[in-house]
């Protein structure tokens, strides 16, 4: 019996707009219009400004920690814009803020979240997203479950879940991919391969040539795109999302991008990253090529840039104000959301702000106090 190939496959790479802002006209045909590109570029300016200010808030002690999104905006916006607002569901980790804003999350919610206010996770009615997921990888399974619910309810919706290159080493990733493909649910797996997982470089995270090829094991349509190319990300996302909506099952997208900032404000990447590498990626910044493209078309100029930046500053200042002037929560609020209905024992703790270990009946021991604010 001669040996034969029982399976072979390859992974395609897609780039539509290069680093100089030159566009492959044929590939660009059904992607974004210039009006859309202009609008999304201005939005990117706002998001970059928020990122910068959030960093400063943390440095001045007004925020716990913050993971900057800088450099990855095209990946978040291209994919988020391809999903239908109010219909599809975003299931994020923490480095795709711009996609969430596109779907209606008020910007100050992200600040609230990182300031440690759970109200930042109370997603407003009509915004289809789950709260940020900090344990790496867990949200991919939730996305699969949400997509399973779409399928059972026969709703033409798609779940799109975000995660990093590092997250694909987690069991959750493989379990989610396997479930999504065996159940053929409408789910898009969107990997932001930003080359680093804190201090661990991509080639130490995995010995695979691409992240995208991991999806081949699950017989999932998969593609690698230039993640700093808004048009390529948008096209790949649109294709995957619409395929899922039509009943074509899950897909995988690897967006090749770069984390221009530190992992979070608790990190100093200079200690483990070569500045030459960072400099090379600064040249590939998604905003630079968009600006070049728009300028070549006479749709943008230095004055417009200045005006956009000024506008963003004013806008983000209001966002910060909204986050910082929200009424402080009551300390006793911590008891409210552990169960749908507060159990008697917790009610007792809430009343007294003491644990039950303080005696047979804390109220009689004179420990009852009005809940205070902090």
């Amino acid at each position: 019996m001669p040996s034969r190939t029982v399976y072979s496959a390859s992974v395609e790479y897609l780039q539509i707009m290069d680093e100089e802002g030159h566009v492959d006209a044929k590939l660009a045909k059904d992607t974004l219009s210039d009006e859309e590109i202009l609008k999304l570029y201005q939005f990117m300016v706002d998001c970059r400004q928020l990122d910068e200010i959030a960093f400063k808030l943390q440095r001045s002690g007004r925020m716990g920690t913050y993971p900057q999104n800088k450099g990855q905006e095209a990946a978040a916006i291209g994919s988020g814009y391809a999903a239908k607002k109010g219909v599809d569901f975003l299931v994020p980790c923490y480095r795709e803020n711009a996609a969430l804003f596109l779907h209606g999350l008020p910007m100050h919610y992200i600040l609230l979240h990182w300031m440690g206010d759970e109200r930042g996770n109370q997603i407003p009615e009509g915004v289809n997203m789950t709260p940020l997921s900090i344990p790496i990888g867990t949200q991919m399974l939730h996305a699969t479950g949400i997509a399973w619910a779409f399928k059972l309810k026969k709703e033409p919706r798609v779940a799109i879940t975000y995660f990093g290159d590092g997250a694909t080493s987690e069991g959750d990733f493989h379990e989610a991919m396997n479930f999504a493909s065996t159940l053929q649910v409408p789910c898009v797996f969107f990997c932001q391969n930003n080359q680093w997982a804190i201090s661990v470089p991509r080639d130490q995270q995995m010995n695979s040539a691409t992240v995208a090829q991991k999806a081949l094991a699950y017989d999932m349509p998969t593609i690698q795109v230039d993640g700093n190319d808004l048009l390529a990300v948008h096209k790949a996302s649109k294709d995957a999302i619409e395929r899922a909506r039509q009943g074509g099952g899950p897909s995988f997208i690897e967006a090749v991008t770069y984390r221009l900032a530190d992992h979070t404000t608790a990190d100093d990447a200079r200690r483990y990253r070569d500045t030459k590498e960072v400099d090379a990626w600064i040249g590939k910044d998604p905003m630079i090529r968009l600006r070049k493209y728009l300028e070549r078309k006479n749709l943008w100029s230095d004055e417009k840039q200045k005006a956009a930046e000024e506008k963003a500053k004013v806008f983000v200042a209001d966002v910060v104000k909204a986050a910082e002037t929200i009424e402080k929560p009551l300390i006793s609020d911590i008891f409210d959301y552990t169960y749908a209905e507060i159990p008697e024992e917790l009610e007792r703790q809430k009343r007294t702000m003491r644990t039950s270990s303080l005696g047979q009946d804390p109220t009689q021991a004179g420990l009852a106090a009005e809940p205070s604010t902090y």
Partner: protein
Amino acid sequence: MTTTLEHPALPEPAILPDFTKPLPSREGDRIIQFREALREAMSEEMRKDSRIFLMGEEVAQYNGAYKISQGMLDEFGPLRIIDSPISENGFAGLAVGAAMYGLRPIIEFMSWSFSLVAADQILNNVPKMLYMSGGQWGCPVVFRGNDGAGGQLGSTHSWCVEGLYANVPGVKIVIPSNPYDAKGLLKTAIADPDPVFFLESERMLGDKAHVPPEEYYIPFGQAALLREGKDCTIVSFGRPVNFCLEADEALRAEGIECDVLDMRTIRPLDIDSIIASVKKTGRIVVVDQCWPFASVASEVVTQVIERAFDWLDHQPLRVNTEDVPTPYSKILEAEYLPNPRKIAAAVRKTLA
């Protein structure tokens, strides 16, 4: 986004027995197995609520590794009775997502021992989802499966997870000791808006008892007083309740009469019933099939000391398993577990 916290009001139960009293008489009534009681509870709820689905390993084609879901694939079809890949963390996490979008998953772990590979989802996501979303996203999933030793399954397959999991706020933990309770509690679990861990025992699935054909729901946090006596309080939950009843029988022959309390649920814990009984008897023995260190028994004893110290005539005693991994040998395993002899000895000690 609609929240998942709305759930239909429980239907008026046809009968609502006094749940604090011993089981109704078996005579002339329908007798079914524990596994059938579980199946009835799931099927009845699934007929009423199309959001409910059952997922787990071998639950569909094979009718359940322990035949609990026998016939359910035929009745409900493959979209609601789903054989999953061997991927506990996978289906636990999938259930979280499905619940977030309004479904009501029932997840069967072939054994709670295997839930350990799903620890991140069931302990780090499920119980915190509501809290971390500021009350917005509930996680109404029922996780159920076999818990506990007694079948010569060896150390890795004999987990009693209640001691470990009860430490985590945000979940409810149910542990029935008989078919009647199993059905009423599982129906309540499925209708409950919070995540519920439902602990069964492979050793009890064939147990038979009277289970009325009418629908009923047993409320959580309501212990059952199975025997009444003035001498000592015996508190237990799950399979060892049956050993307590045996011990009580032997003790009665000696003239020692105990209150035997079956807790039914660990979270919420009906501590008030325990305290009321201890104030009457002045003595307590807690029987728990988990390891002793930081166990549910330890928690019960602590609360008794906090709330009824002055009423105690003897220090509280615990009957747990020995503090070692579960042995595989039949003889050793039997000695390792709580049994009627150890329980009776503990009660006698409180009276000595």
